[in-house]
């Protein structure tokens, strides 16, 4: 992407921050109600060790959950692609899990699992579905004529999977991964909030709650900024991965000269 394409968004962003800052100063709004951006930044710097430590905890949970979602999602998608019966039996269940709000499942998970594992389970649950549905679609989208060619030379299930179905599903999988990355972070935050003080109490979401109880509004904002930045970074990471992995052959990533 062209760096110039960021310019309008950047201008708007800076303008909004400036308006915010001016409004807070002009109307003399108390920091307990709405801290100015500069105060949030100062808080961020002052609490950096604490907040970065918490960010690391949340990110670790996010990526562990994402890894679980990828392994389970791809494995189940492969199972679906080789057995219509398994697909018909299991897919509705996956849909039920997907449409049930994770915040409603979280208390149950907290009953059965240790808090940390419950948070990981929350994040993995929400990240799992886009991986499964996208990969399943990708595996099924392998060109029919190529499938015929593989059958013609008796390639068998495994080689058809490795040489044809998995490569064909890669663009779909990476698209799912990009969505799942953001969802895993949301799941982790939701899980941390549900776990509350029962949790290890060190993730960013928990910091927000804790700061809220102490009416430390600037720190709440500072933690929120970090979560937002982490979400953007995860999205950017997987967008980049998608582009790099596909740029030599897939229409979505080929750069037109």
């Amino acid at each position: 992407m062209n760096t110039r394409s960021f310019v309008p968004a950047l201008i708007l962003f800076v303008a909004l921050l400036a308006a915010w800052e001016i409004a807070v100063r002009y109307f003399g709004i108390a920091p307990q109600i709405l801290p100015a951006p500069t105060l949030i930044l100062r808080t961020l710097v002052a609490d950096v060790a604490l907040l970065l430590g918490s960010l690391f905890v949340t990110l670790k949970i996010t990526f562990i959950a994402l890894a679980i979602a990828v392994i389970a999602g791809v494995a189940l998608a492969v199972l679906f692609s080789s057995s219509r019966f398994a697909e018909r039996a299991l897919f509705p269940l996956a849909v039920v899990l997907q449409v049930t709000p994770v915040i409603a499942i979280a208390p149950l998970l907290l009953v059965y699992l240790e808090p940390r594992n419950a948070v990981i389970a929350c994040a993995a649950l929400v990240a799992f579905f886009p991986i499964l549905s996208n990969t399943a679609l990708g595996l099924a989208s392998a060109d029919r004529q190529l499938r015929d060619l593989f059958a013609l030379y008796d390639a068998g299930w495994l080689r058809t999977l490795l040489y044809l179905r998995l490569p064909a599903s890669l663009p779909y999988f990476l698209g799912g991964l990009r969505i799942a990355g953001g969802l895993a972070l949301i799941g982790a935050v939701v899980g941390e909030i549900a776990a509350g003080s029962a949790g290890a109490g060190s993730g960013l979401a928990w910091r927000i709650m804790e700061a809220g109880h102490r009416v430390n509004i600037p720190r709440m904002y500072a933690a929120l900024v970090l979560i937002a930045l982490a979400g953007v970074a995860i999205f950017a990471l997987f967008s980049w991965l998608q582009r790099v992995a596909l740029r030599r052959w897939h229409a979505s990533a080929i750069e037109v000269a």
Partner: protein
Amino acid sequence: MKQRRATAKRKAGKNESALLAELRGIGKSYDGGVTALRDISFSVRRGEFLSLLGASGCGKTTLLRILAGLLPSDTGTIRWQDGARPGETGFVFQEPALMPWASVAANIRLPLRLLGIDDRAAALRTREALAQAGLEKFGDAFPHELSGGMKMRASLARALIVKPKLLLMDEPFAALDEIARFKFNDELLSLWREANCTVLFVTHSVFEAAYLSTRTLVLSPRPGTIAEEVRFLPAAGGVNTQFRTSAAYASRVRKLSEALERAQ
């Protein structure tokens, strides 16, 4: 040389051992009750260029896939003279059907990989195939970097790399412009003569069937049945560029057009 081949072929046509496959009473219905094919019986002789000519939707592709063993038929049998379909079978599809994520060389090499040919032999044959297809400079290119004609050339090279005894082709040149198609037709004919393989060629083009085949089965649509068989003697001295404008070619075209008309 050509003369001798032509006589050899004619002789072989009468010889039972020259049979490659015999299809009896092949029928196929799709889910929903549409009968695609009904009671199709014909034999395939070794070394012939057999065209299946018919309008779109008359079950030609289905028939070809059944013959290749890619689709089970509902009724009927296929008897292969050697017990099974030759392992060296090439298939050229309507579209080039190249793997977009793999280089042109890897695409052409795919059948050897699937057949478990060892790496060194496969690499050598891939280089030869690339050269034969005029794609030696494009081995490392990706399919999207090729023109439509070059993609079809790669697809053809992929089918030929197994040194096919049987070459199945499903309207392979339908998407090409006429100039390219003529060129491909000529190349295919010389390949067929050199390789001495059997070609089954599905087409909806009277002109293509007339130009290429030694025998044409005209299919009638819905359900697909064989309406007529039109035999041509191998063109004396082989088909060449003059053949396209010759009276012999025109009469072949007329014969097939009339047969196709009757089949509708």
